[in-house]
């Protein structure tokens, strides 16, 4: 009941579709036993969260306004493209929200009774092109992703939901902006940060290929590289997010 009340405040929240169950093969398995991760089905937003939806959120939870947020939760760039703390101005309500930190994204999803997708969930959802659920080995799909990754950001981002959805019914996983995942620091950082090993140096340059499984899946490498360059309070002009929810409705 409480959940429903919470949801009603979000007229602009995106529709969700079911993704999975499915199998995700990480490029850098965390352990030899984890080369394949079997994922149960989950719900995922059809489009990234928009400026309009985020405005509703910061209005409802003013501690997340850009002029009130704690710096440890969002750096100085947070919502810098808005005219004022509650005024998107030039930023169109239907454009994806960007310049948002991981903490902001997580709080937004929690407010909606949802959560951020895990890296494995996001990758499973994003492996699909318009016709196939796993198109990662389809050259045309790979070339399309590489072409987008190679281009600098456009001055103005398009609105969410343009173009054809992928085989899961999802829009904009590629070609619009990067998206936060719950465990964005997972791949580069060892499972135990106290083990005293170099957490990330091994992944650079030639060493990065030493224990990678799919050496010509460049788009995956690029997403991993991007995610591992992040800190939780970073806000970046081409980084947004979407929310997920377990099928049972219980948030993680």
């Amino acid at each position, binding site marked *: 009941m409480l959940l429903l009340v919470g949801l009603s405040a979000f007229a602009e929240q995106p529709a969700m579709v079911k993704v999975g169950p499915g199998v995700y093969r990480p490029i850098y398995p965390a352990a030899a036993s984890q080369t394949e991760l079997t994922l149960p089905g989950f719900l995922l937003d059809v489009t990234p969260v928009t400026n309009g939806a985020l405005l509703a959120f910061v209005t409802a939870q003013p501690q997340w306004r850009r002029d009130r947020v704690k710096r440890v939760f969002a750096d100085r760039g947070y919502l810098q493209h808005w005219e004022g703390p509650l005024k998107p101005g030039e930023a169109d309500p239907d454009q994806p929200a960007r310049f948002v930190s991981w903490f902001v994204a997580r709080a937004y999803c929690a407010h909606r009774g949802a959560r951020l997708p895990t890296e494995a969930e996001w990758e499973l959802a994003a492996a699909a092109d318009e016709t196939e659920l796993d198109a990662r080995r389809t050259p045309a799909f790979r070339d399309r992703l590489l072409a987008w990754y190679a281009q*600098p950001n456009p001055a103005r981002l398009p609105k969410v939901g343009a173009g054809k959805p992928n085989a899961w019914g999802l829009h904009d996983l590629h070609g619009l902006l990067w998206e936060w995942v719950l465990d964005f620091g997972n791949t580069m950082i060892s499972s135990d940060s106290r083990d005293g090993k170099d957490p990330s140096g091994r992944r650079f340059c030639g060493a990065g290929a030493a224990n990678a499984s799919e050496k010509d899946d460049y788009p995956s490498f*690029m997403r991993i590289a991007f995610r591992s360059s992040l800190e939780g309070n970073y806000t970046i002009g081409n980084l947004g997010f979407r929310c997920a929810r377990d099928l049972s409705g219980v948030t993680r």
Partner: protein
Amino acid sequence: MNQFKAVAVAVAVGLWASTVHAQAKPIQAVLTDAPAVPPPTGRKAPAKVVVELVVKEVTLPISEGVNYTFWTFGGKVPGKFIRIRQGDTVEFHLANDPGSKMPHNIDLHAVTGPGGGAASSFTAPGQRSQFSFKALNAGLYVYHCATAPVGMHVANGMYGMILVEPPEGLSKVDREYYVMQGDFYTVGKYREKGLQPFDMQKAIDENATYVLFNGSEGALLGDNALPAKVGEKVRLFVGNGGPNLVSSFHVIGEIFDRVYTEGGSKFQENVQTTLIPAGGTAIVEYKVEIPGSYPLVDHSIFRAFNKGALAMMTVAGPDNKAIYSGKELDEVYMGDRAPGPSPAPDRSVARAAAELAGGKLTLETQIAAGKTLFNGTCSVCHQPTGLGIPMVFPPLAKSDFLMADKLRSVAIALNGLQGEVVVNGVKYNSVMPPMSNLTDDAIANILTYVRNSFGNVGEAVTAVEVSKVRATSARPAGAAH
């Protein structure tokens, strides 16, 4: 006791010196775009040097009418040239432009430490990183981005060079230039127009579409050629960003007086072509002696001709014929066609010259010498039979045009002929080059032979007659006088 005192003093002086050093104002490094090189540091002691480099993803021409989205250290390919001194402590700032799609970092081969700075400089779009290193080793070093997938970051142009001067500096030269080779992989073919994306498979196959100096075809050609003047000493800082290919670096028409191979401390002398590995460098020095154009190439030569690995140095100044004469001879070489198989030495031309000098040159001698000369030069077109080639090269045999005017035929031999003529009732319209490089007596002998062969009968032509025509007629520009 005295020893203790000495140690104490030394420690005190050391502390004092390091305090002073720490307080000295940091120096802002001068960074340059290729082909410019920052001035020598000129410093006698190490210092703290601040380097500020901004990564930018930019779309620029890679060839005429062909664009490519380069990822750059500072907005151009190659990246900014950094010049420091051995022992300097470098405070390195790497910013990633907010417009960037990708995170980037920098691995400087001049850095001693894990990743060459890569892990410490990993920077998301719109962020800035800082790290410091001490330049322990002198030399010319490549730097590059080392973010996964590293090959793609390098293939998109993310490399440059850092020079760590030895304490005594480099020897004085008149000019220094920054030249860096790289290979590029595009979906479209070489020179296919439009915005060309990166081709991952071609890169993995090491099948380069472009091999370029300084990031675009023509970066160092035409108005952008590297200037120098006769007598100057030139130093090239040459790097190879790769990602795949090893360069056979060569300057056509020069011999490198010195090559500091692989950018290290020892030099080799008198080098024609030096090998520059991907991710490696060379310092090349030479003195320019003769004016003209000197192409810089990768002597894996199809790359120069078909993939763009061509730059130019233009040297201005006075000629020096003692070192290089320019062209002294230009004539058709007939291979084994002219003299026939295993010929006896042909002395006919020499005999004619001797008789002419003695004042008693006979018609027979002239004809014999003329035949030898004709077969060496004229028969290529007019054929050894004098019949020419129908519709293309007019016949000399029984030629009404030839025999109608002796002095006109002398002028044609000297000055060439272009345009329509009618020979034996047939129109010809082709080009005969001027033969004014031949001597007066050679032309006289040839024409005497022609006028008395192939069914023609006519009087001899003398060297004096040729000389008069040569003095009174005009030749096309560029022909010998």
